[in-house]
């Protein structure tokens, strides 16, 4: 039953099959769209596209560093969503926490742009983490006190975050004399580059956070409480834990991780903020957490994969002429096959395979109401 190989396959089967299936679907999309638009049937185009995707993300030292840089916020965001999952909470709000984190770190970063880096950098990062934590605390406290469901509140807070960010960048943070809304550069607050042209220090900190995430969940009593509250809130209450406290704490920690992702993206990559700051990192993070099955190593691997896809997309567009949006198709189909895991399991006769989310039943159980009685 517990042969190590069998267990590893049980863990990996679903993600791996989902990825393979999405590659197949992606190939079909490439070939069929080429046939519809260009009128020619070119099965080789799919191979060209994937070749460019791989060489663009892994083919050179610079490409690899770019992949790591892209993977860093995804990793932290994935940890944010994964931690909430473990507590039975669905943090759709990683995107908002990411944006508020970036906003707070740009405010502090710009303010300290001429201070010594030894103060400027840690304070700017801390500001981002605090901002994200505050943005996670709000849905947490709402759920604990009134039962408002975190899925609803975090989605709404995402929009609030976007609006705040736009208002700040166009208003008080707008650099004097700039043609379009943009903040000043963060100057000395920028993260130091430790590898390649743009490999900032977050590349090291993010995996350390993944290790801390695993340590917290599996080696501490607090982690045991979080997992218990996620798996069976009634049993948590019976065991003398305080699910309400755990909800608030977990959401704040999740927000902190997403806020850290925002801080790194801002201080390490863009170094200033425009109204269009922020891609879809917070949403991709949900896919990363699911693909990584909420385990720290899984989330690292999933973040690397999605980071590589993002990085290789440009090369694919230039070299193979396949639009970079194909990456979104791949990402979405991976997620699709993961979520449809019962169907995939059935087709591939995977008995032991699990999506890894069976533990966390409560987010699916209550939609908007029950939270108050926890």
């Amino acid at each position, binding site marked *: *039953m517990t042969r190590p190989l069998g267990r590893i396959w049980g863990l990996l089967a679903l993600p791996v099959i989902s990825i393979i299936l999405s590659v197949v679907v992606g190939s079909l999309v490439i070939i069929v769209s080429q046939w519809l638009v260009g009128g020619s049937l070119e099965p080789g185009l799919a191979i060209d596209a994937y070749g460019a995707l791989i060489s663009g993300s892994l083919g050179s030292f610079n490409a690899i560093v770019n992949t790591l840089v892209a993977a860093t916020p995804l990793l932290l965001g994935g940890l944010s969503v994964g931690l909430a999952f473990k507590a039975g909470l669905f943090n759709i709000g990683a995107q908002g926490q990411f944006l508020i984190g970036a906003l707070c770190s740009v405010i502090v970063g710009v303010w300290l742009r001429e201070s010594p880096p030894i103060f400027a950098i840690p304070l700017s990062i801390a500001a981002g983490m605090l901002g994200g934590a505050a943005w996670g605390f709000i849905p947490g406290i709402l759920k604990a006190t009134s039962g408002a469901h975190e899925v609803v509140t975090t989605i709404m807070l995402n929009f609030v975050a976007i609006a705040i960010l736009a208002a700040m960048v166009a208003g008080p943070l707008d650099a004097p004399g700039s043609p379009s809304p943009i903040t000043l550069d963060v100057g000395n607050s920028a993260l130091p580059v430790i590898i390649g042209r743009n490999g900032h220090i977050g590349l090291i900190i993010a995996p350390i956070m993944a290790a801390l995430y695993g340590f917290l969940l599996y080696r*501490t*009593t607090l982690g*045991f409480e979080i997992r218990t509250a996620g798996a069976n809130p009634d*049993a948590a209450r019976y*065991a*003398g834990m305080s699910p309400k406290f755990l909800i608030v704490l977990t959401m704040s920690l999740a927000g902190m991780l997403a806020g850290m992702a925002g801080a790194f993206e801002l201080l390490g990559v863009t170094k200033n903020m425009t109204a269009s700051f922020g891609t879809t990192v917070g949403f991709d993070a949900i896919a990363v957490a699911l693909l990584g099955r909420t385990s720290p190593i899984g989330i690292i691997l999933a973040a690397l994969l999605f980071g590589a896809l993002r990085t290789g997309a440009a090369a694919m567009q230039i070299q193979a002429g396949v639009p970079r949006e194909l990456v979104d198709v791949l990402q979405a189909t991976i997620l699709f096959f993961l979520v449809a895991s019962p169907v995939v399991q059935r087709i591939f006769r995977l008995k032991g395979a699990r999506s890894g989310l069976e533990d966390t039943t409560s987010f699916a159980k209550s939609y908007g109401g029950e939270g108050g009685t926890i």
Partner: protein
Amino acid sequence: MTSDIAPVQAPALEMRGITKRYPGVVANDGIDLEIRPGEIHALLGENGAGKTTLMNVLYGLARPDEGEILIDGAPVQLTGPTDAIARGISMVHQHFMLVPVLTVAENIVLGEETMANPLFLDRKEAARRIVDLGRRFGFEVDPDAKVGSLSVGWQQRVEILKALYRDAKVLVLDEPTAVLTPQETQEIFVVLRGLAAAGHSIVFISHKLYEVLEIADRITVIRRGKVVGQRVPSETDEEDLAELMVGREVSLVVDRGDSNPGELALEVKGLTVKDDRGREVVHSVDLEVRSGEVFGIAGVAGNGQDELVEALVGLRKPSAGSVTLAGKDLTGRGSRDVSEAGVAYVPADRHRFGLVLSFPIADNMVLTSYHRAPYSRGMLRNDAAIARTADERIKSFDVRTPSATAKAATLSGGNQQKVVVAREFERDLRLLVLDQPTRGLDVGSIEFIHRQAIAKRDAGTAILLVSAELDEVLEMSDRVAVMYRGRIVATLDGRTADKNEVGLLMATGGRNAADVAVVTTDMKADLDTDPDAGSAA
């Protein structure tokens, strides 16, 4: 009654030499079972004996490794539940498979829709057939009632109707009485007898000996995957069946010995508790439990016992009154404080409160003590200590599992309860609250848990035992309180109390018949949907 049916009558269903192996275990080992038309055939066995596997084979959910199934003498290969249903085999599960927000009729036709045309249901025709079926077997049910508003007993009847609607000839009931009150049990027995009389065959899975003796025409006993005997109720008794089931002589009566009550442990004064809907369900209850004594609370389920216990252990805030343990005020304190004061609690619902099913057994063994040394060191878990304790307790409480890392969900019900008991009995305690500690367990496990509780009592722990099983309360308790509609209506000596007297107190609260007939608002919901309730009271 019908034990002397001539063997020439062809069996409605026959299972021959059924063997089903799972990795590491032979769940069924050459089982022969023969169900005659119109008979109620009880399948008796301990938790984990292989009853469920056998029924899964019969229902097409598991393919047997060896053996064959014959329906009306013809061998069949069952490919799944749909196939089994098509061949006239239906199952009523212990946990009902009903949609609470749909009506009775909608639930019954689900998957077998009677269509007026390709787009729409023929509700009228479906309702007519349902009422008709109910009338034929003596339990008319309103097809338009929402299932969620029905009592458990009536939900079960809906499940049975669902089977009959699909023309079931063989009806398998998996522990049908586990969720029912004694009164509802009697009502369902009437229904089952009616079905048998109409020629349906019934497979009645249970481990309650007295019920099996009451309802079955024949009894097949399974132990560790094998048929170990077949009996006719008139030629056997509970002791005989228990011995067959467990494989050794079992004491069905608790050997409680003498108790030496000491100083006052738990003192409850004027405790008033509301339920989740804000209705007052415990009215000003006073009780005292001394160390070294078992104080039993008898009552039909739903008379406020659950809320009383939850208020005592810190899961529910009382609206008035006080709870004192050894002189320390615990009123309104949370479950952690109560636990630290020396109270352990075995909850009635082990799946909801007692266990985290997706966690390993080891984690469950420390669910209420993970924060204490040696299981934690400061903020950190001490996995080595947890694993060591888990292994020790698995051994000393005879939990049947391959390892402490197996998930709690993989254990049978009896073994799950042993995990809870092992965990809660471990510490030195002032008070042990046992809420239905043996519900759903087989006789072997019941005997074991009773003996452990008596040992705890002899060690000076005060024990508060709540149970709907009258026998259990009377055999265990030094003093018995009867709870009726949120009040303690009598407190009796547990060694001299008369079972009938207590039973009557449980059913009526000790008032005269005129009082009982008064319908209070909280009973009305039941009466609306349960036409039998009024007449049976």
